[in-house]
């Protein structure tokens, strides 16, 4: 049994699953990270995942191409981001409570909308999801080929976003301004830039990424929208953001680590399933997230202006 437990790690299928599970989290952590780097905690993430999952799926179901669905999801996320941004930045409302409100609003309006569109369906309607990835040469390789063959172009987008966000934050004037506004908004204001514009913009962009995390589930991992399919993934992303100390590279590592753990527990369940109740394994990802958060909490270098509303001319 020990051997079987170890053997899982050598299976290509396991690694393929790890990446598949990690992909929505990569989007979510990147999104949370951009918001928080600009000084805004976005607890709307859980609901924005739900809204992105359903809106992207619905767009494709109504005839849009898959990438059109991706764009619709991003737009939906940005809209909720705009609402969160307006409430927390110029109005300076509690980021905690507003974020929870956004999650409640996004979730309930999504569920309500879905029920209005499909009042009496017993099995959720399906779409044709993203096809498996095929990369010439790489796909022919034995182990890597299997891993790649179970991903889609949507996964590639996630990895590309890691690079793009990293470059944006580290190497562009815009990234500089975002990092500055999360550390000391006065520094940004004094240089003639708009704190409000930067923060709202960052929250919108971050929320669009979060929504992509949801859309991945309905457009790539599955082919339909289910109630409760997000199931805390958004909250996990908030924990992983602290774990990643707000760095895109570490965010990728954190998401992959989480994906691997989740994939591992799913597999080990089938081995130890008879002895240990399945719920014990299902708890592991949440417990892992809590442990990761507690482990880094002391050293966590929170953006200095995180959750501090800024009002012009008030110093």
């Amino acid at each position, binding site marked *: 049994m020990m051997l079987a437990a170890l053997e899982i790690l050598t299976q290509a299928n396991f690694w393929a699953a790890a990446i598949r599970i990690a992909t929505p989290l990569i989007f979510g952590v990147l999104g949370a990270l951009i918001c928080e780097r600009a000084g805004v905690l976005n*607890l709307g993430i859980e609901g924005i995942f739900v809204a992105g999952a359903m809106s992207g799926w619905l767009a494709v179901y109504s005839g849009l191409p898959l990438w059109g669905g991706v764009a619709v999801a991003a737009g939906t996320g940005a809209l909720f981001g705009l609402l969160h941004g307006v*409430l927390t930045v110029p*109005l300076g*409302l*509690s980021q*905690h*409570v*507003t974020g*929870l*409100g*956004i999650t*409640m*609003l996004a*979730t*309930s*309006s999504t*569920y*309500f*909308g879905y*029920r*209005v569109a499909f*009042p009496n369906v017993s099995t959720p309607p399906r779409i044709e999801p993203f096809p498996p990835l095929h990369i010439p040469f790489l796909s022919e390789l034995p182990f890597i080929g299997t891993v790649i063959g179970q991903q889609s172009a949507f996964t590639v987008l996630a990895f590309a976003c890691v690079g793009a966000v990293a470059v944006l934050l580290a190497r562009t004037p815009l990234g500089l301004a975002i990092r500055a506004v999360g550390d000391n908004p006065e520094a940004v204001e004094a240089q003639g830039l708009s704190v409000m514009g930067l923060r709202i913009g960052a929250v919108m962009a971050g929320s669009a990424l979060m929504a992509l995390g949801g859309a991945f589930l309905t457009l790539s991992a599955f082919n339909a929208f289910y109630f409760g399919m997000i*199931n*805390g993934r958004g*909250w*996990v992303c*908030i*924990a992983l953001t*602290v774990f990643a100390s707000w760095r895109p590279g570490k965010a990728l590592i954190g998401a992959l680590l989480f994906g691997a753990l989740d994939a591992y527990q799913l597999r080990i369940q089938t081995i130890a399933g008879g002895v240990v*109740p399945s*719920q*014990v394994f*299902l*708890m592991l990802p*949440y*417990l892992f*997230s*809590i442990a990761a*958060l*507690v482990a880094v*909490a*002391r050293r*966590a270098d929170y953006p200095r202006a995180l959750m501090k509303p800024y*009002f*012009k*001319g008030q110093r």
Partner: protein
Amino acid sequence: MIRFIPRERTPLWLSLAVPVGAGLAALLLTAIPLALAGAPVLRAFSLMAQGAAGSGFALAETLTRATPLIFTGLAAAVAFRARLWNIGGEGQLYAGALAAVAIGAGAITAPSWILLPMVLIGGALAGAALLLVPVLFKTRFGADEVVVTLLMNFVVMLFVQMMLEGPMKDEMALGWPQSAPLVDEAVLPRLFEGLRLHWGLVLAVVAAGLLHVFMSRTVWGFRIRAVGENARAARYAGVPVGASMALVGVLSGGLAGLAGASEVAGLKGYLTADLSPGFGYAGIVVATLANLSPLGVVPSAIFIAGVFVGADSMSRAIGVSNYLADLVVALALLCVLIGGLMTRFRIAIVHREIA
């Protein structure tokens, strides 16, 4: 340009008008999705009102639904007052319910005047113990309690499912994952014959009154307020910050645990995994609507309960999804947050005061 001018004092009428206005605004905004769904908007609202308070029975249903919301609302109010962001009310509720079943479903045989308090206190202690973990993580390691309490909700739900499918499963329930029923001595009596309304409501209202006195009149309530408003200054002045936070954890978790115990002991009689349709999360809305005042929690919980009960009966009548209720609740939360600005600031519209 809009300017916010801080108020020194908030007139009482405004503190009362804001939540009422927010509730009405949320209902009005809901007209939009209702219309989009093709429902007759006016009829839907009238059905909601009737369903929530149109008859003695409807009112009793609303108050029954309000009972756990008062408890979770108080749990959120006391925690948020101390800036302890306990979003784990849902998990603590289930922990309380689980403890209630563990004690009251036959494990202990005792007369009602012993067993019933044991069930309730056990539920409260379970909720309190559950919240003490993230409080400890926060005070010892500086771990953000928001995420920890949120994630613990999922852990507790899985634990409850595990217990209901395993050790606590009722073998008589034909394979349904539910617990054995409470013994008669552990059941909270009904208030009126033929209605589901039970003594939990009285307990909840008494708890609100006691919490109000505690927070405003006692030394520990004073300390909690001081820690919540400015923990650094409180620590400087010699207020035991860690103990105050732990006390808040016990109170908040305990109240949320009572919500679960009272639902099991007063309403359901046994535990299932769908005991709470999100009472823990709705408690946050209740508390915010009440501006974190324990006394305000009671009417605020009744309003939210009315929305749920009314929307349920409306959706049965005209076939619109009852997720509408969640939508009203979410909108009410956001509206009261915006309205809260008016209690803290005078809002002046000026010509380019601050660019």
